[in-house]
C-alpha cells in the first residue's frame, strides 16, 4: 500500500454540549479517493473540516503529508497550501475575476510574481475547462462554473490532498455532471481526495473506499461495491436503501 497522506487518529470534536466526532480514525493513502457518506449530522463535514483545521479537534492527532497539523509549532498557513478544500457554496471572492480568485493565494502565500501566478492560474482554469472565463467575475458564471473555478483555486496550489465538502449539493441537477467530470479527471491524474457527498453514482464508479458515518463514528468502510450491495450494519443498510429509494 502506498504511503498514507492523511493519518487521523482518535478525533473528537465537541460543539458545546454536542459531541459531534466520537473517536474517528481515518487513513488516506496516496492517490486514493475516499468517499464519506452518512446522514446529516453524522459528523462527516466536521471530520473533513478538521483535516485542515477549519475546525479545531477537541482531541486526537492529524498528520497530513508528514506534517503534524495539531502541533502548535506547525505553520498552519503553510500546511494548508498542501490541503485543497472545495466548499458546498463555492465561496468564490465576488470582487475578483476567476483568474484573480485562482491567483490570490499563489501570489500572497506561495510568493509567486503576478506573471508566474497568472500563468499557473490560467493553466488551472484550462484544466477545469474554463480557460475562456478567466476574466469573468463569479456573478457572471453559472453555479457549475463557479464550483470549477473553486476547484481550480485549490489545484493551482498543487495540494497533496483535496477535500470536497458536498461540492455538488448547491448545484442545479444539470450542472452536477460538469463538476463531477472535473473531479473524475483529478482522480485520474492521481490526486488524493476525500469527498463528502451524496452522489452515490460517482462513489460507485470513482471511489476506492466508501466510509459510512453515523452519530460521530465510522460505522463501516470498504470498497464501494461491498458497502452499497452488501453492507454489514443495519444502519448502513437503512441509510443506503433510503438514499436509493428516490
Amino acid at each position: 500500500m502506498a504511503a498514507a497522506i492523511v493519518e487521523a487518529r482518535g478525533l473528537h470534536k465537541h460543539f458545546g454540549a454536542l459531541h459531534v466526532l466520537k473517536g474517528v480514525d481515518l487513513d488516506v493513502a496516496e492517490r486514493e479517493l475516499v468517499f464519506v457518506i452518512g446522514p446529516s449530522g453524522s459528523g462527516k463535514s466536521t471530520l473533513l473540516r478538521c483535516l485542515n483545521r477549519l475546525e479545531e479537534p477537541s482531541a486526537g492527532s492529524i498528520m497530513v503529508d508528514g506534517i503534524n497539523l495539531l502541533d502548535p509549532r506547525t505553520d498552519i498557513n503553510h500546511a494548508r497550501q498542501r490541503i485543497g478544500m472545495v466548499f458546498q457554496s463555492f465561496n468564490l471572492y465576488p470582487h475578483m475575476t476567476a483568474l484573480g480568485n485562482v491567483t490570490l493565494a499563489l501570489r500572497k502565500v506561495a510568493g509567486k510574481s503576478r506573471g508566474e501566478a497568472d500563468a499557473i492560474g490560467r493553466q488551472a482554469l484550462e484544466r477545469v475547462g474554463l480557460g475562456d472565463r478567466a476574466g469573468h467575475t463569479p456573478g457572471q458564471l453559472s453555479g457549475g462554473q463557479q464550483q470549477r473555478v473553486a476547484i481550480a483555486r485549490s489545484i493551482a496550489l498543487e495540494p497533496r490532498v483535496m477535500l470536497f465538502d458536498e461540492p455538488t449539493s448547491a448545484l442545479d441537477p444539470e450542472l452536477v455532471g460538469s463538476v463531477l467530470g472535473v473531479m473524475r479527471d483529478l482522480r485520474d491524474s492521481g490526486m488524493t481526495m476525500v469527498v463528502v457527498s451524496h452522489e452515490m453514482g460517482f462513489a460507485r464508479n470513482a471511489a476506492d473506499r466508501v466510509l459510512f458515518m453515523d452519530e460521530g463514528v465510522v460505522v463501516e468502510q470498504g470498497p464501494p461495491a461491498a458497502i452499497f450491495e452488501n453492507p454489514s450494519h443495519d444502519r448502513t443498510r437503512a441509510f443506503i436503501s433510503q438514499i436509493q429509494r428516490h
Partner: protein
Amino acid sequence: MSKWEKFLDTFFNARVMEKYLPDILSGVLVTIELAVLIVISGLVAGLALALVRSLGLRPLNWLIIFVVDLFRSLPPLVIIVLMYFGLPAADVSPSGFVSTWISLALVLMSFSEEIFWAGITSIPKGQWEAARSTGLSFGQTLINVILPQALRLTIPPLTNRTIAITKGTALGTVVAVTEILGQASSAVSNSYNPSPLMMGAAAYIVLFLPVVVIGRWIETKFAWKR
C-alpha cells in the same frame, strides 16, 4: 419699497455681502481645514478600531464598544464644550479649533467604527474559510478578501454619516472658531443684516454638495459586476 425688494435688501444685500465676502471666504478655509482633518482622522481611527475589534480579544472589544457607545450618545456640542472648557482643569488647553477637530473626529471615529464593523461582519463566513483554506493568514484574508467587500457595503452609510458630522464644524462657533458660521454670525451682528448668513448657507452648499457627488461616484466605482 415693495415686499420683494424689502426681502432682497434684508437677506441678499449686495453692499453687505461685498463687505463681508472676505470674512466668509476665510471662514470657508477654516471649515475646509477642519473638515479634512476630521474626515481623515475620524475615518482612519474608526477603521483601525474596527480592525482591532475583528481580532476578537474580549476585554479590548468591551473597551472599544464602551468608547464608541459613549461618543455616539453624547451630543457633539457637549463634547466640544467639555474639551474646551473642561480640559484646562487638567492643565491641557486645546484651542477652539483643536477642541472642535478632536471632538468631531472622535464622534466620526465612533460612528464609522460601527459602520466598518457591520460591513466586516456582514461578509459570509465562507469567504474567511475559503481564503484561510488556501493558506492566507488572518491579516491577508482581512485585507485582500474581507475589506474590499466590506468597504463597498459601507460607502453609502459612511458618506451620510461623514457629511452629517462634518457639518458639525458649525458647532465650533461656540468655542470661537472662525469657521463659516462663526464669521457669518459676527458679520450679522456687525452689519445688523442677515445677508452674511445667506452667504454662509451658500458656502455650505458649495462645500458639501461635491462631497455627496464624490460619495455617489465612489459607490458606482466600487460596485462590481454581478
